[in-house]
């Protein structure tokens, strides 16, 4: 089969796979941002217990491979509690918990990178810790966090390919299925690779633009 025959034949399925990849990544990243902000705030909290909770969560996620996390959620939890879960649901939960931990670390680092004097100045004017954090510290922290956040988006997009192991019909899984039909391993993986590459290049370009603009503002 020629390259272009193959491409035109499998293109609709590949696009569908790409759609699932983008959808699961996007949903996961939105949920992970909320989770990350929550645990990021806990990890800079003055309460020892809150910091410990955040520490445990981040350590567990960072200390285990994402494929084990996916298996645990899709097979482990469902069999222990005896219910069925869609691969897409399990995939999104896995990506969310995983990216959430890394984003929590990014948020913590960003907040801690803001000079301590900023919090002191805000507090000395009578602002509460929470108000000072939201209106003085976070706006400054976000600027330093943008490159790391975009980087995490790219990593999560790529990690979604691992979810093919639990049968989520994302781009990599579709690639395997197409190869099962036509045995064109070499060509199909090139096409799949190029599709990931193009999406990630687009993300990187956007990220560089944002960085440039933030630098101009700062």
């Amino acid at each position: 089969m020629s390259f272009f025959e193959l491409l035109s034949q499998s293109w609709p399925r590949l696009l569908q796979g790409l759609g699932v990849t983008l959808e699961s990544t996007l949903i996961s990243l939105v949920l992970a941002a909320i989770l990350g902000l929550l645990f990021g705030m806990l990890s800079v909290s003055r309460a020892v217990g809150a910091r410990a909770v955040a520490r445990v969560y981040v350590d567990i996620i960072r200390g285990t491979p994402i494929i084990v996390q996916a298996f645990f959620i899709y097979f482990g939890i469902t069999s222990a509690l005896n219910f069925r879960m869609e691969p897409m649901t399990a995939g999104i939960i896995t990506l969310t918990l995983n990216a959430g931990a890394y984003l929590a670390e990014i948020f913590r680092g960003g907040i801690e990178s803001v000079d301590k004097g900023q919090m002191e100045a805000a507090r000395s004017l009578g602002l509460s810790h929470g108000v000072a954090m939201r209106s003085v510290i976070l706006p400054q922290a976000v600027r330093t966090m943008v490159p790391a956040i975009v980087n995490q988006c790219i990593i999560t997009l790529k990690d979604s390919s691992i979810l093919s192991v639990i049968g989520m019909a994302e781009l990599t899984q579709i690639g395997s299925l197409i190869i099962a039909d036509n045995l064109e391993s070499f060509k199909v993986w090139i096409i799949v690779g190029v599709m990931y590459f193009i999406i990630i290049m687009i993300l990187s370009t956007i990220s560089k633009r944002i960085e440039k603009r933030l630098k101009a503002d700062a």
Partner: protein
Amino acid sequence: MPKIIVKNLQKKFGDLEVLKDINLEVEEGEVVCVIGPSGSGKSTMLRCLNGLEVATSGSIVVDGHEITDPKVDIDLVRRNIGMVFQQFNLFPFMTVKKNVTFAPVKLGLMSQEEADKKADELLDRVGMLDKADAYPRQLSGGQQQRVAIARALEMNPDVMLFDEPTSALDPEMVGEVLRVMEKLASEGMTMVVVTHEMGFAKQVSDRTIFIDGGVVVEEGPPEEVFNHPKNERTQNFLNMVLQ
């Protein structure tokens, strides 16, 4: 009643006892300068006065509020205590004017219009009105510090604390900041100033306090402390800095 009453203030960082037993009173309208070698605890003492450092033991009463009471609403008390930092600590993403008006508007103490009007007056007083729309990074250190003073004054404080306000400045900018402080002192503001500027302490303060090793070694009118120091440690310190 004195504006500030400090009794038996002790502050430890871990095992390190930075303040041993500080006793101090500051009357309304009084300008007190605190001098002493680096690491003597003078900045820590100042930071205890608005609760940025929590006293290990002892009591601090500012404006009738007991800062050292764990139940005190420290945010409320701090509204009346202005603080100026060595590193200015302006908010870098806000214009000069926004820096000044931000806190009182956020706290609902003034409308934006009221705050703007007062900010214009204060910025004019510190000679920074023409830079109202500039960002902190566009200003020199001396200009930033004058804005920081205006920001603290916008809250209508009863007491102003200065933590080595000129130590981070290039020498040619020290004067402009000291002149603003001098004006403030002459207008009757209650001020506690931790400083290395001996000339300022000598001329402007009503009382000078020499702190060393976490204790008040000597205090009195500046002409006495500077010209006739009684304690040997004060003499040594002054000899070194005034040589």
